[in-house]
């Protein structure tokens, strides 16, 4: 796919993800002006008509959003949302050519880092290597979506296996860049991981917004490692 097609695909996916988030806030009755504008910006972006204006609107309201919630409302999901928006805006505002490529490459590199760094900080921690950390996540952390899920804490062997599966996948994810088939497999595993996090921990926004960055990675792999 061409860089233009990748940028457009990223725009469409971002618009749908932010639309989902914004409708939740809007119908919740809070901050309707802010989220109303974000909803309109997403619909504008979906039309494809002067979508650079929609991206800038989304970025500016993203700043207001960060001020309103004194930082992210939804942790890493909001960081990724703003990062994608920033890279798209840079790609639109930059002169065609290398600067556009640099903007999308930055997004792709950050996506790879999001897995690698997250895996690295776990794998150097003895609590994660022993499986104890994941036992504690289910045992007393605020993350399980229901009380019944806390019973998983009584299955340390399963959680040890899950810990090593996650850490192993995350730290070797950069190797998926070496071949397009490996990349598709890596992205499928990553999406499954996000889906599990959404089901078990209620992190649905992470699932959708991380998928939005995948087109940049497909382009980046072909640009850097392709024939």
């Amino acid at each position, binding site marked *: 796919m061409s860089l233009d097609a990748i940028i457009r695909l990223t725009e469409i996916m971002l618009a749908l993800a932010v639309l*989902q988030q914004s409708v*939740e*806030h809007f*119908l*919740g009755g809070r901050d309707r002006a802010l989220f109303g504008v974000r909803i309109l910006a997403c619909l504008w972006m979906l039309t494809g008509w002067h979508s650079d204006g929609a991206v800038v609107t989304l970025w500016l309201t993203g*700043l207001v959003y*960060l*001020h309103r*919630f*004194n*930082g*992210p*409302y*939804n*942790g*890493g999901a*909001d*960081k*990724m949302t*703003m*990062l994608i928006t*920033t890279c798209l805006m840079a790609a639109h505002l930059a002169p065609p050519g290398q600067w556009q490529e640099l903007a999308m490459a930055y997004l792709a590199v*950050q996506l790879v*880092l*999001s897995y690698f*760094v*997250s895996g690295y*900080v*776990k794998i150097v*921690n003895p*609590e994660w290597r022993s499986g104890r*950390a994941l036992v*504690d*996540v289910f*045992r*007393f*952390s*605020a993350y*399980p*979506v*229901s*009380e*019944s*899920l806390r019973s998983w804490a009584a299955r340390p062997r399963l959680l040890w296996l899950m810990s090593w599966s996650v850490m192993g996948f995350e730290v070797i994810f950069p190797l998926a860049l070496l071949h397009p088939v490996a990349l598709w497999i890596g992205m499928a595993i990553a999406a499954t991981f996000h889906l599990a996090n*959404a*089901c078990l921990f*209620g*992190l*649905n*926004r992470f*699932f959708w917004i991380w998928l939005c960055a995948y087109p940049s990675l497909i382009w980046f792999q072909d640009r850097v490692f392709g024939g």
Partner: protein
Amino acid sequence: MLLKTVSLLLPVLFPSWRFFKTVGPSPRVEYRLIVQGKEGAWQESHPIPERVSLGQMARRMVWNPERNTQLYMVSLSERLVSGVVDHSVGELNRMIAERLVGQAGDLQFRLMFLVPEGDQIVGEVLYESTPVSLAEVTL
């Protein structure tokens, strides 16, 4: 304003991506109503349900405001004990009060942080808010 914007934007543009580096003390938000000087019992605000079915998990993929509010309250609790007080207190008061529409009295909340101690999970109160009149909390 500009410095604040930069401080909000930098961690977004250069994220650390250190998800779940460690599993630390875990916050629970508890509140009580004080009516005519009589203090009610502490109860958890926005508790998680006993069970979530597969169907509910599927629906939550596209409609999940309740859970996202709970996650925001966890962030606010962690920010509050790390020193970001005014904004966090205001937001927590507002979100607790949203569940108490129609009730009267003063609202007080506390942050109970859970930690494992051997086979037990024990809680320590790290913050107790100043009571505010429910009528004065802006929803």
